[in-house]
C-alpha cells in the first residue's frame, strides 16, 4: 500500500473530531471552575480581612489545594477527560500536574521518584513565572528610578 493510499484510508476511517462540542465542554467546565474561584474570592473578602487587591493569593492557593485533593481521589482525571483544556488551563490544572506526576512516580521511591518528578510538568511553569516576575519588576524598578512611573 502506498503512503498516499494509506493516508486516504486513514482519513476515511478516523471519525471527525467534534471541535465545536469539545470547545463548548471546555468553555462550560472552565467557566464553572472560574465561578467556584469567584465564590471563594467573595468568601475571603466577606469573612476575612482581604481586599480585591490582596484576595488573589489565598484564592489561588485554595483552588490549587482543592484540585490536588480531587487529583488524589482520582476525580480530576475524569473531569480532564470530559473537559480537556477547560480543566487544564485554569490554575487548578497546575495542582493536577504536580500531584499526578507525584502519584505516577511514587513506585520509584520518595526521593528519586516523587521528589525528582513532582515538578516535572509544573517546574517549567514555576520557573517561567519567577523569572518573568523578576525581569518585570527589574524593568519597573528602572522606570521608577528614572521617574517615568510611580510605584
Amino acid at each position, binding site marked *: 500500500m502506498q503512503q498516499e493510499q494509506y493516508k486516504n484510508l486513514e482519513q476515511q476511517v478516523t471519525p471527525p473530531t467534534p471541535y465545536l462540542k469539545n470547545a463548548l465542554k471546555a468553555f462550560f467546565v472552565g467557566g464553572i471552575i472560574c465561578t467556584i474561584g469567584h465564590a471563594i474570592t467573595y468568601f475571603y473578602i466577606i469573612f476575612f480581612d482581604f*481586599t480585591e*487587591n490582596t484576595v488573589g493569593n489565598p484564592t489561588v492557593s485554595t483552588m490549587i489545594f482543592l484540585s490536588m485533593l480531587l487529583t488524589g481521589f482520582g476525580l480530576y482525571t475524569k473531569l480532564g477527560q470530559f473537559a480537556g483544556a477547560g480543566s487544564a488551563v485554569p490554575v487548578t490544572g497546575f495542582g493536577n500536574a504536580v500531584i499526578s506526576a507525584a502519584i505516577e512516580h511514587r513506585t520509584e521511591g520518595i526521593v528519586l521518584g516523587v521528589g525528582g518528578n513532582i515538578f516535572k510538568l509544573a517546574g517549567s511553569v514555576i520557573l517561567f513565572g519567577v523569572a518573568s516576575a523578576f525581569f518585570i519588576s527589574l524593568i519597573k524598578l528602572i522606570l521608577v528610578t528614572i521617574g517615568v512611573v510611580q510605584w
Partner: protein
Amino acid sequence: MKKIVFFFFVPLLLAGCSGNDKTIEVYDVLDDAEKRVEVREILDSNEDIYSGTAIFVNNDLLVAVQAKPWLDYKKGKIEKELTNQFEEQFSQFDVLVSADYKLYWEANKLLNEEDSKKVEDQVKKLKELEKEET
C-alpha cells in the same frame, strides 16, 4: 432534560437584566441633610457606578462605590474622578473613595451601627486595609 435546563437557566440569565435603580446610602452621625443631598448629587451624576455608600465620621469621609459590571477595568479612573469631586466639595474631610468590594461590603454593614466609636474604628481599619498590598 433540555427543557428543564432551559426552564431554570433563562430566568437566571434574565435576572441579571433587572434592577437599574442606583442605590445610594449615607451614614452621618450628625444627620446633616445638606451633606446627604450633596453626596447623592455627586454619586447620581456618575454614570459608571450602580451603587454607593458614604460614611461621615469625625473628620473622615469614606465613600465605597461599585462600578458597573462591564466597567470594572475603569475602577482606578472612577475612584480618581470621585475623589477629586468629593475633595472639592468636602475639603474639611479626609476623603477616601474606593471601588473595592471589601470596603463596600463593610461600609454597608456599618449603616445600621449606632455606636459612632465603633464606626470610627472600623473606618480607620478600612482605610489601612485599602493601603495593604501584600
